[in-house]
C-alpha cells in the first residue's frame, strides 16, 4: 500500500508541478509579449517626441561647442557674434527644457527610469545655465581732441568742460561675461548631454 500510495502521490505531485510550471511559463510569455507589444506601440506613437528630445539635446551640445570656440577666440567681449551664439545656446537650452517636460511631452512616461533621470538632470543643469547673468550693458565714452580719439573714464566725463573736445561720443555696449562657476557647469552639461544622447540613441535604435 505504501509503495502504491507514494507512487500515486508522486505522480500527482509531478503532474501538479509540471502543470504549474507550464502555466507560469505561458503566463510569463504572454505577459512578456503583451508588454513588448505595448512598448512597441508606445515607441511608435511617441517616436517624434523622442526625436525632438534628441534634436534639442544635440543642438544644446553643438551650440555650447560653438560658444566655447568663439569665446576663446574673441578679443573684444562686446563681440556681436558671441552675443548671438549665447542667444542661440540659451534658446536651445530653453527648447530642451520644454522637450523633457511632462506638460509638453507625454512620452517621458515610457522612458526607463535611468534615462528619465539623466534627462531631468540635464534639464536642471540647463535651467541653472539659463538663470545666470552673462550680459552686461554699459556706456563707453570717448572724445576727439586735437584730432585724436581718446577713451575716457566716467569720472573724467563728469569733469569735462565744453572746450575740452571736438567731439564727444557715447556708445552703449553689451558685454558677454562669464557667470560664477560657468566652467564647471559647462563641463557637467557636456558630460550629461553626451550621456543622454548615447542612451537616447539606444532607445531610438530599438
Amino acid at each position, binding site marked *: 500500500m505504501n509503495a502504491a500510495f507514494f507512487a500515486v502521490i508522486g505522480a500527482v505531485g509531478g503532474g501538479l508541478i509540471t502543470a504549474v510550471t507550464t502555466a507560469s511559463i505561458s503566463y510569463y510569455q504572454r505577459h512578456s509579449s503583451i508588454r513588448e507589444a505595448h512598448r512597441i506601440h508606445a515607441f511608435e506613437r511617441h517616436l517624434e517626441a523622442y526625436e525632438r528630445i534628441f534634436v534639442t539635446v544635440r543642438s544644446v551640445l553643438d551650440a555650447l561647442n560653438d560658444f566655447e570656440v568663439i569665446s576663446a577666440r574673441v578679443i573684444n567681449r562686446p563681440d556681436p557674434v558671441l552675443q548671438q551664439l549665447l542667444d542661440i545656446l540659451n534658446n536651445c537650452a530653453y527648447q530642451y527644457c520644454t522637450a523633457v517636460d511632462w506638460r509638453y511631452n507625454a512620452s517621458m512616461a515610457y522612458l526607463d527610469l535611468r534615462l528619465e533621470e539623466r534627462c531631468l538632470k540635464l534639464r536642471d543643469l540647463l535651467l541653472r545655465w539659463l538663470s545666470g547673468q552673462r550680459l552686461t550693458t554699459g*556706456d563707453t*565714452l570717448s572724445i576727439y581732441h*586735437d*584730432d585724436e580719439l581718446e577713451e575716457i573714464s566716467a569720472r573724467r*566725463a*563728469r569733469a*569735462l*568742460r*565744453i*572746450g575740452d573736445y*571736438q*567731439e*564727444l*561720443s*557715447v*556708445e*552703449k555696449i553689451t558685454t558677454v561675461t562669464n557667470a560664477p562657476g560657468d566652467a564647471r557647469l559647462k563641463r557637467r552639461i557636456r558630460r550629461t548631454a553626451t550621456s543622454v544622447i548615447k542612451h537616447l540613441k539606444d532607445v531610438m535604435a530599438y
Partner: protein
Amino acid sequence: MTTTARAQTTRRIFASRWLRRLSGTSTVSAFVLITVVAKRSGDVVRLLMEKYPEFVTEAAAVYGESDVIAKVEAPVERFHELVMDEIQNLPNVKVTRTFVIIPQLHEVR
C-alpha cells in the same frame, strides 16, 4: 607744411579758442548725431521733441551714418548731463556723437 594743412591747423586753433570761451557763456548749442536701433528713428525723434521741449529745438531722422540729428540748446551746467545721462539712455538709442556749435561761426538764415 602745405597751404591746406596750414589752413586746417589755423581753423582748428581758432575753433578750439572759441570752444574754450564757450565755457564762460551760459547756453551751449550742439548738434547731436544719434545712432538708433533699426526702424526706431521716428520714435526717437518724437520722444526727443516731447520729452525735452526746452532743450531740443530740432530733431530729424536722416539717411547716412547716423539715424537722427538733434539740435540741443542747454545751459552749460546741464549740457553734459542732458547728453550723457538722458539722451543716451532714451529707449532705442545706441550711440550719441556730440558736436558743440561755435556761436561766432554759426549762421541761420
